[in-house]
């Protein structure tokens, strides 16, 4: 009974905290766009905000609720539990199960689609840049697309190779390799798990920002920027234009005109965007120290909150 009560309390606390933090993120994330930092940092912060409710809820439940219940709840007392923690606990279980199912469904859908695209594919010579690039026959796939979560590969259609110049193709591949380095496919899969209504706009903004961040990572001089812009315009005339599977990143994601305009205005000085100074390190240290010194009272407070939850 004690163990069951503990599980119900932990799950209820998790559900409450996750919902509260998700709602907070859904309301406040737009403020991030005002930060004068690079697109890469904005994309990273958007991702961090998106997964923050899940991570914070898991960490706080494991670090505070479980120990406070174990240490401060008397085992001998057979306390009756109200319906609220049971309902919240069921909600948490449903949330986790739905998240898992969404991840599995996305993975399967992507695998099916990629298998279809890879039918008749051939390895492609990319000057030793990466052996992950393959070329495939037309099967309704986007012109260039990054697929795979654990071992990502870039698929390039035959028509793309035909219409792009060597320089344009190389810079387009560099753009996709930047997505590999950022593990953007894995992040998309994580989004599937973190279920909460009202997050679509955040995810779309993240998607658009990662494209711009990958553009910036690929380009090192004005010529590269023009080649990438030219590749975007040329490939936009091909159909179909977009990667539809969940765990893929299409080259032409987001607003093409915005990206082309940004690339044509590229200059070396501006590309060295303002970066976030390492404020994070002292902030984390201060948080850890304060947790260390206030852990006892925090556990008692958590226990009081959970007691209130039980009733």
């Amino acid at each position, binding site marked *: 009974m004690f163990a069951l009560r503990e599980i119900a309390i932990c799950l209820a606390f998790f559900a409450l905290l996750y919902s509260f933090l998700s709602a907070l993120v859904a309301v406040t994330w737009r403020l991030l766009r005002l930060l004068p930092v690079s697109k890469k940092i904005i994309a990273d912060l958007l991702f961090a905000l998106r997964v923050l409710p899940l991570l914070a809820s898991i960490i706080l439940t494991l670090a505070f609720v479980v120990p406070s219940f174990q240490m401060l709840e008397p085992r001998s007392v057979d306390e009756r539990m109200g319906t609220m923690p049971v309902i919240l606990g069921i909600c948490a279980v449903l949330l986790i199960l739905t998240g898992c199912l969404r991840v599995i469904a996305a993975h399967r859908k992507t695998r099916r689609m990629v298998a279809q695209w890879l039918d008749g594919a051939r390895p492609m010579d990319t000057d030793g840049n990466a052996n992950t690039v393959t070329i495939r026959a037309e099967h309704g796939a986007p012109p260039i697309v990054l697929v795979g979560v654990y071992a990502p590969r870039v698929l390039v259609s035959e028509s793309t190779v035909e219409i792009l110049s060597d320089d344009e193709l190389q810079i387009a591949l560099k753009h996709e390799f930047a997505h590999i380095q950022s593990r953007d496919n894995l992040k998309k899969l994580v989004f599937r798990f973190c279920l909460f209504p009202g997050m679509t706009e955040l995810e779309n903004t993240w998607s658009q920002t990662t494209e711009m961040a990958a553009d910036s990572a690929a380009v090192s001089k004005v*010529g590269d920027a023009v080649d990438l*812009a030219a590749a975007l315009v040329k490939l936009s005339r091909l159909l179909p234009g977009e990667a539809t599977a969940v765990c893929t990143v299409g080259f032409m994601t987001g607003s093409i005109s915005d990206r082309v305009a940004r690339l044509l205005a590229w200059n070396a000085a501006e590309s060295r965007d303002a970066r976030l100074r390492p404020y994070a390190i002292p902030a984390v240290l201060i948080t850890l120290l304060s947790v260390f010194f206030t852990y006892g009272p925090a556990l008692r407070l958590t226990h009081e909150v959970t007691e209130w939850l039980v009733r």
Partner: protein
Amino acid sequence: MVRSFSIFGSSPQLGPFEQQLLRALWEHGSATVRELIKDGKVRQAYTTVMTTVDRLYKKGLLDRVVEGRAFRYTPRHTPGELQRVAAFEGIRQLLGSSDTSSLPLSHLVEALTAHDVELLDELQLLVERKRRELHSNETSKQGSARPDQNPGQNKMRGRR
């Protein structure tokens, strides 16, 4: 923007003067009728302006608070928000305008495709212009590095 479509459900379209006042209020952020007239951009009589902003308020486009003996009006939506609603409403009306619902949809797809092609043509022109500019800069740099070369020849290369 709000010329041809109803903006909110069954409310009527915005007339030119209503649009003018809404634009003036967007510029001001918030204003009383007297401030709008004092600005000089609105030349109509006080009562005309008062009646029109009252109509905009009743259409749900403005908020107002009492200030002394008058009202201070504030636009309820940004231009972007209003444009989005107008576009949505326009498309909804277009799709509902025919018994054969696929017909207006096909016109819409056609128009969007034509718009896309035009946009891509424009973008391509910009890219080509930038490429020419880049090429001519590189050529002129090479030319200045080799002063013995025929300058006319450099100019021709740059153009190419």
